[in-house]
């Protein structure tokens, strides 16, 4: 069964762009990759862009005068332009390259947080955060004696917005929230949440790692103070991510790491910070990865984020329908209309590791564990769940094989 959606998105054509999808996991067993929420696969265009960069342009960027350094600088900086435009950032100065989403959030906690927060201040988080948007705030809270509050998650996997209104009465100085949950798949009503936080004067930080790869994100419209995401979940390489920030805040913030590139002038006992975005980019960056990140954005733009979103919605709805028919299987999170292509589930009396192991035998890659969201699993009273996550290259046939695999798990544990 080939999934050709009404929008004309041709998934079989897309699959040909991803070399890894044609490998066998075990002899005679093709790959069904359902772990894109952990990391996506990479298209030929990204692999080629990085390879070409190393073969033809490799040099250190920004300060070199020679031809290669110029080419490398242009390659890296034009990637920044593409990525900024991809999320509708008003200027490239507001798009800082980091190692990943985690580092971007740590940058905000370290630089903005340490400067602007003091003992007794409230920070508002949610119960559905990935550890990357939780632990940096725990570290800061213990250093600065801050109070952490949490917007609860309802039993059906949504943020409890009534409770949110009550927590805003503590006048939090900061709100950190995920755009889309990596466990529940919940797509949060971000604009509404951000508007309410801004109304009480909170600075807002958004973890967009699961959002930017899967549907159009417009930071100019959403208007967060900070928005973080990673290349490797959106067809790009590992080792690079981005932080969008509001210009007035970024300008006032002290640097994150010190070193080369982040300075304008250095004396023995002092330095002057470089302009944005370089002020936050100490040391030689991941240049080839930046180039790959840009190529990934080109690839996604070319296919169309609306089309990708539509294709994933079709897959997600189909998967949820199929899973509903399986006895003793519970899917976490909200109804299909409020979630993206992240489907975490639990089968009665069968541990997630065993589910993943048996599926792996049939070439089906899913994740098992707490997906870096341990408190959320504690809340739902589950030590671990299995998670199937979709991306642009998945097909209805992938879903059928996955569902057959689940049946096999149940037979083995029968």
């Amino acid at each position: 069964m080939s999934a050709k959606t009404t929008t004309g998105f041709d998934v079989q054509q897309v699959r040909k762009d991803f070399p890894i999808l044609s490998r066998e996991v075990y002899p005679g067993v093709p790959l069904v990759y359902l772990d894109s929420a952990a990391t996506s696969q990479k298209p030929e265009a990204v692999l080629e862009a990085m390879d070409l960069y190393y073969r033809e342009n490799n040099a250190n960027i920004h300060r070199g005068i020679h031809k290669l350094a110029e080419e490398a600088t242009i390659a890296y900086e034009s990637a920044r332009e593409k990525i900024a435009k991809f999320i509708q950032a008003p200027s490239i100065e507001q798009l800082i390259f980091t190692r990943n989403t985690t580092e971007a959030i740590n940058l905000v906690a370290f630089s903005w947080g340490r400067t602007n927060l003091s003992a007794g201040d409230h920070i508002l988080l949610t119960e559905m955060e990935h550890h990357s948007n939780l632990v940096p705030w725990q570290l800061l809270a213990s250093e600065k004696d801050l109070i952490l509050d949490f917007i609860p998650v309802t039993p059906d996997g949504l943020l409890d917005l009534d409770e949110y209104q009550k927590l805003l009465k503590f006048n939090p100085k900061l709100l950190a929230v995920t755009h889309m949950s990596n466990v529940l798949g919940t797509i949060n009503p971000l604009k509404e949440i951000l508007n309410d936080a801004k109304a009480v004067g909170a600075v807002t930080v958004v973890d967009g790692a699961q959002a930017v790869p899967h549907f159009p994100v417009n930071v100019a419209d959403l208007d967060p103070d900070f928005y973080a995401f990673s290349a490797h979940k959106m067809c790009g390489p590992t080792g690079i991510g981005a932080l969008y920030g509001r210009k007035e805040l970024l300008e006032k913030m002290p640097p994150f790491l010190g070193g080369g590139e982040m300075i304008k002038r250095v004396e023995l006992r002092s330095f002057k910070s470089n302009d944005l975005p370089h002020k936050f980019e100490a040391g030689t960056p991941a240049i080839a990865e930046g180039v790959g990140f840009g190529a990934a954005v080109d690839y996604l733009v070319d296919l169309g984020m609306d089309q990708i979103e539509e294709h994933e919605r079709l897959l997600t709805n189909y998967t949820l329908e199929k899973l509903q028919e399986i006895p003793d299987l519970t899917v976490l999170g909200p109804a299909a209309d409020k979630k993206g292509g992240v489907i975490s589930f639990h089968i009665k009396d069968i541990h997630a590791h065993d589910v993943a192991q048996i599926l792996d035998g049939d070439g089906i890659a899913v994740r098992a564990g707490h997906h870096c969201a341990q408190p959320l699993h504690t809340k739902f009273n589950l030590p671990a769940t299995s998670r199937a996550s979709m991306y642009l290259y998945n097909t209805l046939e992938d879903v059928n094989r996955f569902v057959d695999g689940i049946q096999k798990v149940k037979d083995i544990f029968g």
Partner: protein
Amino acid sequence: MEDFYRELIIERYKTPHFRGELDPNDITYEDDNPTCGDHIRIDVRLDENQIVTEAVFSGEGCAISQASADLMLESIIGKSIEDVKELGKEDILDMLGIELGPTRLKCALLPLKVLKAGVYGLGETDTPV
């Protein structure tokens, strides 16, 4: 792949022989596998000669970790605490009779880790926030 879930492992997972808690006990210890959230507690009773008379486990985990715990505890009953200290990775893998990759190896060896920590009287290692 089905070899992985050979009958012995599924059987011990579904109907373990050494599941429970002992109170009072001579040795008790519990620990987690942070990658999957598995949690195992082991309680042991010894006689006056430091011989294991009773040993049980509790907690949550996958078929591999639970079967591993059950088979391991079966093997230590009647043994001296010094013999228990000698128990190693290979013994556990022999009992399970399967080959394991690095991630599942942690599942299989969690019960051994817990038992050894209990026997050697180690403390908690979590960093409080």
